[in-house]
């Protein structure tokens, strides 16, 4: 008669009254899993979900900062080309090979490399914190369950079936696998809890310095954007004033229509850069909170702060993507209208050709 076997983790105390030969083997597995579960206890990553939150926020800041640098270079190039075209219109010399990026490739590289290191740090922190729940660990435990179930099947059907009376049910195998997983998670969490306080504490001043540097850079990008938009508006006005007599009414209308857009774009860009600076400031605070969480068992005290940051990070979105999209849209519009709605620089060139 096939007897039911209790689950080792949930029902093993009942085994005390089971058939002696079989219960000795099964209860040993149940006891083993219980001991593992007991010793692993409820050890969890002390930093909680904060590393994942920090990684999400860091990714947003890295992406938006990179986009902001590129957008700043694009805007300045636009201003330089506009100034150059106007110079040509006025009979002056201008060599387009003299175009100099606002941020040189070397300077851009220094920033993107540092931002990449920040991104890797944030991701690594999140990976380590998630180590207890890692796919590899779960896969190993599931594999062990499968192997144990196979062993149970062999015992039942070949070597021990009907003779030893011992068998391992699927529930028993799953129970041991669960215990192994819990044990592995406990060890992984223990490793993380031992190392994260030191790592986050040593990294915190560097994160603070990096955030301060980024905020400083954003200040210079804001100043430069104000200059470039101001110059673009002035160059457009100069172009209109000097060449309006050579324009058709439609061409003149199109050029005049552009004037207010520079001021609108300037305000919009400045607001976005200001928001980015605020988000970077919050990233700095978020890492401080993460460090405190890693060093403390009191997760609740920092939970609200990080939730606030997460919300700010999500709102940040992809500001500079919208700028890029606008830029692309403008370019498309320029090409679609075949010169009827070109930028002042392009227009200048067109007008010169007509002359």
């Amino acid at each position, binding site marked *: 008669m096939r007897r039911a076997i209790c689950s080792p983790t949930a029902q093993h105390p009942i085994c005390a009254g089971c058939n002696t030969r079989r219960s000795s083997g099964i209860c040993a597995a149940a006891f083993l899993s219980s001991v593992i579960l007991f010793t692993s206890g409820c050890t969890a990553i002390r930093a909680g979900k904060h590393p994942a939150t920090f990684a999400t926020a860091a990714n947003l800041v890295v992406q938006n900062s990179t986009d902001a640098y590129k957008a700043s270079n694009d805007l300045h190039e636009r201003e330089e080309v506009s100034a150059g075209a106007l110079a040509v219109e006025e009979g002056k010399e201008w060599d387009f090979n003299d175009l100099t990026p606002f941020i040189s490739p070397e*300077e851009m590289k220094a920033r993107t490399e540092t931002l990449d290191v920040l991104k890797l740090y944030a991701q*690594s922190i999140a990976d380590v914190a998630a180590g207890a729940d890692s796919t590899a660990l779960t896969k190993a435990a599931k594999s062990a369950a499968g192997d144990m179930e196979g062993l149970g099947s062999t015992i039942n059907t070949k070597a021990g079936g009907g003779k030893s009376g011992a068998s391992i049910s699927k529930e028993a195998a799953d129970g041991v696998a669960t215990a192994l997983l819990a044990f592995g998670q406990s060890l992984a969490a223990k490793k993380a809890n031992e190392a994260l306080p030191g790592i986050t504490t040593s990294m915190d001043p*560097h994160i603070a310095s990096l955030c301060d*540097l980024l905020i400083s850079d954003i200040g210079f990008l804001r100043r*430069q954007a104000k200059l470039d938009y*101001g*110059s673009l508006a*002035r160059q457009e*006005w100069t172009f209109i004033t*000097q060449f309006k007599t050579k324009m058709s009414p439609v061409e003149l209308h199109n050029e005049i229509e552009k004037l207010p857009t520079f001021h609108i774009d300037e305000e919009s860009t400045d607001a976005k850069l200001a928001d980015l600076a605020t988000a970077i400031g919050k990233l700095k605070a978020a890492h401080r909170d993460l460090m405190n969480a890693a060093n403390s068992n009191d997760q609740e005290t920092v939970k609200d702060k990080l939730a606030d940051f997460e919300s700010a990070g999500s709102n940040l979105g992809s500001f500079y993507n919208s700028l890029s999209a606008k830029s692309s849209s403008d370019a498309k519009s320029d090409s679609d209208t075949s010169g009827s709605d070109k930028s002042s620089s392009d227009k200048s060139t067109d007008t010169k050709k007509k002359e």
Partner: protein
Amino acid sequence: MASSPANSDPTEGQVYAAYQNAFDILNDACESTTDTDAVGFLNDAAQALGDVLTQENQIEIQANTAAFTALTPEMKTANDALKKLKDQQAAIAAKIGIAGKVFSAVDGVLQLTGKFM
């Protein structure tokens, strides 16, 4: 006797703001006239001033670049420590996997010996 704040040297920010103010005034003046000669002159003057301000911003960005470069190796050290930690966690998963191999090995022995029982 300590000098009064009014006599102290202006900060870089104050100097930049003064130049920016002059740039804005020239821009406004340029955009407020339709006289082609005046527009040409004011545009050139504003352009020259704008170039000076751009250069100042570029110098500030360059100054920050050195600080960015200095930060990178220090941050990489922390990433190396995290890499070791990740490796240790991977080793734990590998050891859990060994339990499965033991079960599998015992299973193999039993299947083999079962044939002779």
